[in-house]
């Protein structure tokens, strides 16, 4: 399945490249406001941004192209910040973002006269994962905060074995990094000892290999890696029941570490872009959300 998507995405990318090259002599002036969308009869739109969402957006793109054969959708990751920057610079039609656009970016959009439109298209739970050999059965938000800020350095501080905690995190460029810092660490800094890894799969692999490791990853990734890592139920307060992340618990707001996922578009963009966003929000689109391990907004 993933291979198929990857092949598809590469294929689309190559096609897009050819398309761009072949119509390079075409209307260059308009390319700034409406990137690559007016290329002959074949319409092309690009989605760029969050690595967390790549899985989801490529599935959408695949299905969308099945419904609208005249439109090519290309999907690239790179991180939420990268996607937002690309949207502001006019190099992508749609930006996928796992965090809300921030003040500075909004100002920039105003300057560049880009009419940012926000679409909340899915929700995502952030799973706390540990090594399967780790006997700790649950953590409270407070304990998670203390672990990631370095206050707790040993698993015995949270009722586990006498084993140093290895804190793993995404790089600071990740939307997930910022979200986790803001809402779980209450805006405190990560411990300087946290190892920053590039990409979610590196996190999952390290947690699977290292007994004392702990990390946060998107729910879809944690479910994919169920065989190699252990998801921990999380208590929102000390007295509250511990809740495992899942479709129901996230949607009902019982699981405390969840966030909306967004698509951002330029208000004055092409009808194809609008069709794509509408498709993502449609029943068919939301079904894909659930299938790929995210939580639908409906």
């Amino acid at each position, binding site marked *: 399945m993933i291979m198929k998507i990857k092949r598809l995405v590469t294929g689309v990318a190559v096609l897009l490249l050819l398309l761009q090259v072949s119509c390079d002599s075409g209307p260059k002036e308009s390319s700034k406001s409406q990137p690559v969308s007016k290329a002959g009869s074949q319409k092309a739109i690009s989605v760029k941004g969050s690595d967390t969402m790549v899985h989801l957006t490529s599935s959408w793109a695949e299905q969308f192209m099945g419904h609208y054969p005249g439109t090519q959708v290309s999907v690239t990751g790179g991180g939420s910040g990268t996607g937002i*920057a690309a949207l502001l610079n006019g190099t992508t039609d749609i930006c996928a973002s796992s965090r809300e656009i921030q003040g500075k970016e909004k100002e920039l959009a105003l300057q560049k006269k880009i009419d940012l439109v926000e679409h909340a298209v899915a929700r995502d739970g952030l799973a706390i994962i540990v090594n399967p050999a780790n006997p700790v059965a649950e953590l409270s938000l407070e304990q998670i905060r203390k672990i990631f800020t370095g206050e707790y350095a040993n698993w015995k501080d949270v009722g586990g074995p006498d084993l140093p905690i290895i804190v793993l995190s995404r790089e600071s460029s990740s939307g997930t990094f910022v979200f986790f810092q803001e809402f779980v660490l209450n805006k405190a800094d990560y411990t300087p000892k946290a190892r920053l890894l590039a990409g979610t799969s590196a996190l999952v692999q390290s947690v699977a*290999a290292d007994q004392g490791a702990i990390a946060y990853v998107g729910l879809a990734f944690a479910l994919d890696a169920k065989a190699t890592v252990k998801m921990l139920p999380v208590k929102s307060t000390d007295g509250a029941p511990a809740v495992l992340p899942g479709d129901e618990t996230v949607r009902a707001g019982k699981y405390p570490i969840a966030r909306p996922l967004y698509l951002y578009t330029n208000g004055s963009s092409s009808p194809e872009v609008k069709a794509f966003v509408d498709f993502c929000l449609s029943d068919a689109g939301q079904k894909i959300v659930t299938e790929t391990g995210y939580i639908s907004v409906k």
Partner: protein
Amino acid sequence: MWKDKAMRLLMVSAASTSIFLVALIFIFLVKEAAPFVLTPGLRALLDRQWIPVSFVQEHFGILPLVTGSALVTGLSMLFTIPLSVLGAIYIAEIANPVEREILKPFIELLASIPSVVLGFFGLVVLAPLIKALFGLGTGLTALTGAFLLTLMAIPTVITLSEDAIMSVPRAYKDASQALGASDLQTIFRVIIPAALPGIIAAIMLGVGRVIGETMAVLMVTGNSALMSWSPLAPVRTMTATIAAEMGEVSFGSIHYQALFWIGLVLLAVTFILNIIAQRVLVRYGMMK
């Protein structure tokens, strides 16, 4: 006549293109880094913490990154120097032509492995090995990075050291042997001292190669900006910081400027290393 002149002009411009480009790059780096001097001021770079994204207080101290790079580079040289110098001696002085024909292409092949492939090898093979060997929680350490960098530095240092050893005049060797010195004595008392400046220059260039390497260290060193001299601690190097953070930093921000300062420091270090290597070579007549 005009043809000669035109040709000359063409060649001069071709030869100066790279200098021109280096100058442009330098100007660009300085231009982007410059506003940092006013706010928050250069003192901020001397902070002992690198916390570029924070809701509390950002810190742009490049010291932990400098020590990180230094630690990884130093460790890797610890492995590179004996391996390369001994290897070069063997290839230049002892190996028979057949052995040399086999060894040399393979060493050069090592140089052509993309560093991201080496990094992957490090992540999947080397890190678990180091973890098991030292009983650590995780194998993402400075030592792991140093091992990988050793693989990258070896081709440079071996090839250049071998050149240096080869360029020792034949007469030295003959004279030494005529005086009754054994092969070993000849190599360590005559040839190596004569080739030493060249070997030192080779090591310098190896250091330059290692300190600028990015991808492999980004993948295996754990990237925690800690100030530590332990080989088993995770480190964050200057190059890895730029690579990991430049992609998403907002243009013109203080964080962006700080990254350019790291670039400037890196450039200065490699520049100085190269100059020293060249000086050594010229001084001892190994390069004109």
